[in-house]
Each structure stands twice: as C-alpha cells, then as structure tokens.
C-alpha cells in the first residue's frame, strides 16, 4: 500500500521495534549480573570464564540488534 497509511505503519512499527532493544538490554544485564555474582563468589575462576561472558553478551545483544535492524528496515527500506 502507498501513501500516508504506509508511512504511519512504518513509524509505528519502528517505534514498536524499540521494545526489542529494551528487552535486549535486560537480557545482556542478566548475563553480566550473573557473571558478576559468580565472579565475586569465586574470583580465581572468573578470569577463565571471561570468554564465556563475552559470548553470552554477544548472543543476547545480537537479538536486540535484529530488532533495531527491523526498525531501520521499516524506516528506510520499505
């Protein structure tokens, strides 16, 4: 469809996709918080798990980026 209704849909869709970014922030905070709790409990084991921490953060953040990508696609590629 063309015209004003499509533009309205674009803007509303892009705004709703912002929820995805917020939820991704919750997910990343979850991963980091659990790592911090474990690291403060067992500091000597923390250094060996920093790789796992970064992988976990990357997976959680990637899904937030997907929702940002949806917002950008709606705004500029539709």
């Amino acid at each position, binding site marked *: 469809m063309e015209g004003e209704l499509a533009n309205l849909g674009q803007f509303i869709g892009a705004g709703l996709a912002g929820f995805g970014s917020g939820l991704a922030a919750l997910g990343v905070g979850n991963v980091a918080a659990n790592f911090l709790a474990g690291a403060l409990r067992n500091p000597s084991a923390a250094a060996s798990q920093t*790789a796992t921490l*970064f*992988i976990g*953060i*990357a*997976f959680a*953040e*990637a899904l937030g*980026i*997907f929702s*940002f*990508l949806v917002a*950008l696609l709606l705004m*500029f590629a539709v």
Partner: protein
Amino acid sequence: MATEAAHGAETADHGTGLVFHPMDQFMVKPLFGDGPVGWFTITNVTLWMAICVLAISALMVLGTSRRAIIPSRSQSVAELAYGFIYKMVEDVTGKDGLKYFPYIMTLFMFIVFSNFLGLIPMSFTTTSHIAVTFVLAILVFVGITVLGFVKHGAHFLGLFWVTSAPLALRPILAVIEIVSYFVRPVSHSIRLAGNIMAGHAVLKVFAGFAAIAAVSPISVVAITAIYGLEVLVAFVQAYVFTILTCVYLKDALHPAH
C-alpha cells in the same frame, strides 16, 4: 548530487528537514566518476579495504621486521595481538585447531582494523555492510561444514543427534539443532554488521542535533560518550566474531554429541 538521485523522488533534504541523512554514510560510491557500481568498479569500499590491508601489513610486517629481542612499540603490539589470538584459538579449539590459526588471525585483524578505521571521522566502515560480513560468515560456515565432513564423514551428522537427551525427544531436538546450525551464518554476520552500522548511525543522528543551537552542547557530549562506546564495540565485536568462529571450528573438529 548523485546520492540524492539514488534516493528516488525525495528532495535534497529527504523530506525530513535534515541537511544530511544519517544513512548516507553507508552509501557505496564509485571513487572515480559518477557511473553505476558494477562488479569491478573501484569504490570507496575498495579504497578502505586496501587501507585496512596496508595498515595491518604496516603493523604486523613492518612492525616486527627488526625482530628485536627488546621489542619496539609496534613489535610489542603485533606480538600482543598474535599472542592473544593464538591463546584464544588454542584454548577454544585445542592443539589441532592451531592449523587454522592463520585464517582466524586474518579474520580478527581484518575486522578489528576495519572497525577502528571506520572510527576516523569522514571515513567508511567496510564491516558495516551486510554484504561484507555475510561473505565472511558464509565462508566460515561453508568452510567449517566441509571440514567437518572431510574429517569425520557421516559421523559429523552426530552433531545434531543429542545423545544426552531422552530418545523420544531426539528427533525434535535434531530438527531444532539443524535449524540453529543453519541460522549460524545469519546471526554471525548480522551481529557484526548490525552493531557497527547501528553505532555509526547513532553517531550521525546525534551529530545532526549539533546544528540546533539549543541542544548542541549536549549533542557534543553525547557524541563523545557514544564514540567511546563505539571504540569498545569495535574491539568486542571483532573478538566475538573470532571467538564464535573458534567455537564453530571446535564443533567441527570434535563433534561433541
């Protein structure tokens, strides 16, 4: 300008009142002349990839050419980068994964240098394009799948048959595992391209606010803060791409299930 014409019927300010559009920085433009971008056109992507290769060579080859026992600064940085990735490959994939260390080092150096070169103002970030990161990710995916079949034959399919689960669940889990295996190149590529593109688009959006006198101090502070975040993201995304490549390689070399 040709770039505005590429946006179709929109006016020079894209109908939004902005002088520049935040997404204009990602346009692929030919370096010489204004013609169409064909397969062998020299574009700004070509230029910045060449600069990336030259920068990596300058650090790794020229930096270590003296081979001094007491390293100079460049030699130190080159040795640190080498040791960092060597340790990562060895820790994640084991001793037999070290055969693939040159490939993984190339991936890491290209991505980290591309990301950092993109932080130079007025430059172009090649890894912000899904075209570039998809090629990187699909080569990793295809290469590792072929490697798995060459090394283990049909036993490589045991990767999808989760023996630690109850027998009734295994077919469903196999379907889920196969789907998540094929999603790997998709997420691998979009993670890098999305992170870098999102960061640069945000920087451009905040830069647009600097034209409005009332909010320009806040805008400059915000740009500085986000620039710092982008420096971190540039390194972390290169590290994450590389370590996920190592994890997939480990899956191919030693199928765990």
